[in-house]
């Protein structure tokens, strides 16, 4: 007669430990990338794994190194603007503005308030665009596909706005040394305002979907912790530093481009894990919308370029085509470049990914002698060898998504 036997699994953990003694494992080397859906670009990670746990991590970058710094030594200051677009290609307007501000600092050029307000709107819209994508991709890495689609829909609206203003959906090349390429079109501010109304409910929806989502919290809380001391020692800036609990925002600490006129808050995290980075970015999105609304309200009248910067900013088109002196000025600026005084300058702007820094050394003339770009993503990736070991392999995607880096800026 068949009898039933009770099967007890016993203590699985203890059995596992016993097996570990009998069957010593080897560390496995796993190569993630450079062509990989979750590395957000061409990043290669050489991981040494003990089962599922990461022992050692070595990122290999340089797969998108295009020689921007060498190119800059051969291009005039205005000719280099399209290359700055392609640094952080998720927020090109912010790069354009940061570069223009750095060169204008070299020339000690005063920018009129309307131009500053336009640039602030551009920077903040770029920040909204970058954070929407960052959140979308982060959600997608953690498994939430819908967020990605919602974010892309909103970004399409932003693309339409950028296209109206600059002519291109992204890779805008909008700023020039001394001003911007053209004034805002008629009614554009009204459409930006409408976009601000439309994006807030979507951000709220993303918030509702992710912030208290048990799966998301379990995947991101306590994962990828960067302590405040580590963040400072590794030179991390931007949202990643703020999530670790350190108050640092260049728009408040060293205000540029008229940011001191706007009222906004800077979210600071507490623990420095992936969840905090996500919260900081969502709140920054809301604050960016707030800044854009204020800038629209306060938009001053006046010129949108530095008038009187004779050797730097080309005169208006009507004058070029009718008057000899303006024609010559335009010719010199286009062929020889905006004439900068000799000197060196280092300027950082608060870009969505961190602080984008430009070091420019000029010996006079229209072409820089040395232009060095400090990409915040280069610095963020530098902490991976320290942060990843100890985590599980599946945490890698979440950590990479939360660091929000882009390889264009990292490799230049």
């Amino acid at each position: 007669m068949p009898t039933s036997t009770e099967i007890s699994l016993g203590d699985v953990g203890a059995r596992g430990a016993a097996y570990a003694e009998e069957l010593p494992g080897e560390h496995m080397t796993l190569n993630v990338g450079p062509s990989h859906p979750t590395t957000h670009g061409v990043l290669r990670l050489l991981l040494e794994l003990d089962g599922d746990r990461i022992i050692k991590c070595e990122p290999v970058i340089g797969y998108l190194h295009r020689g921007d710094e060498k190119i800059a030594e051969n291009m005039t200051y205005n000719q280099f603007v399209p290359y700055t677009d392609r640094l952080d290609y998720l927020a090109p307007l912010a790069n354009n503005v940061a570069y223009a501000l750095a060169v204008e600092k070299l020339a000690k050029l005063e920018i009129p308030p309307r131009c500053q307000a336009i640039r602030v709107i551009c920077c903040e819209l770029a920040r909204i665009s970058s954070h929407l994508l960052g959140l979308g991709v982060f959600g997608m890495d953690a498994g939430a596909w819908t967020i990605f689609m919602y974010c892309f829909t909103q970004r399409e609206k932003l693309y339409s706005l950028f296209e109206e203003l600059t002519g291109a959906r992204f890779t805008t090349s909008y700023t020039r040394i001394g001003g911007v390429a053209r004034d805002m079109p008629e009614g554009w501010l009204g459409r930006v305002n409408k976009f601000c109304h439309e994006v807030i409910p979507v951000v709220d929806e993303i918030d509702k979907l992710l912030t208290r989502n048990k799966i998301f919290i379990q995947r991101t809380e306590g994962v990828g912790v960067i302590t405040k001391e580590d963040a400072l020692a590794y030179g991390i800036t931007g949202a990643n530093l703020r999530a670790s609990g350190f108050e640092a925002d260049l728009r408040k600490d060293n205000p540029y481009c008229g940011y001191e006129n706007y009222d906004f808050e800077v979210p600071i995290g507490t623990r420095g894990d992936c969840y905090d980075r996500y919260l900081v970015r969502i709140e920054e999105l809301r604050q960016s919308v707030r800044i854009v609304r204020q800038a629209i309200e306060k938009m001053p009248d006046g010129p949108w370029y530095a008038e009187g910067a004779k050797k730097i900013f080309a005169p208006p088109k009507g004058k070029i085509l009718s008057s000899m002196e303006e024609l010559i000025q335009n010719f010199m600026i286009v062929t020889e470049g905006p004439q900068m005084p000799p000197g060196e300058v280092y300027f950082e702007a608060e870009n969505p990914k961190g602080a984008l820094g430009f070091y420019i050394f000029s010996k006079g003339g229209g072409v820089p002698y040395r232009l060095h770009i400090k990409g915040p993503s280069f610095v963020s990736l530098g902490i991976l060898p320290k942060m990843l070991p100890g985590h599980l392999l599946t945490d890698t995607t979440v950590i990479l998504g939360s660091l929000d880096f882009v390889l264009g800026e990292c490799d230049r």
Partner: protein
Amino acid sequence: MDTIVDTLKAKFPYVAPRATGDHPAVNVPAANLLEFARQLRDDHGYSMLLDLCGVDWDKETPRFGVVYQFYHAAKKTYLMVATLATDDANPAVPSLAALYPAADWHEREAYDMLGIRFTGHPNLTRILMWEGYPYYPLRKDFPLAGIETELPAADTAAATNAKVIAAPMMGGPFNAATDDQHHMSDAEPRAADQSWTEDKPKPGQRG
């Protein structure tokens, strides 16, 4: 903010102020750099190293230098520190990677681009170009288009006969500006030796 430069000058006899456009800047000899950076971090509160870049000063001696950007995290101020590598043939500067982990990758990049060795760096290998690339691209004597060499992957090169070529400049870069030239006809694109195209490759190169 001249006070920080004055303080540093008073404390360290080897520090010299540097003419600069914005933030306070000092020149420090390479031999004293490590000690100077340690005291900057511990005593003066410059807890962040934001950036570090190598520069090829070309016709000056010494030829290679490194420029550092330090940040006082509490006071939110910058300090630029410049140093020069004494030897032109094998430029070397002490590495700050032990003090500031941020310097690790930046120094690898400066080595990769300019060939400046950082003594004491834990892993000084190329980071942006591939291991085995024979040149230092950011040096002033290296052309923008590059120099013909082998592809890093032998199997790809064998399958496709592709090489790392001097990029066809097609007469560019299209501006008439160089800071050394004073005569415009010397500065125009046609005066530069970069006129080869995709159809007519550079003489001496297969294309």
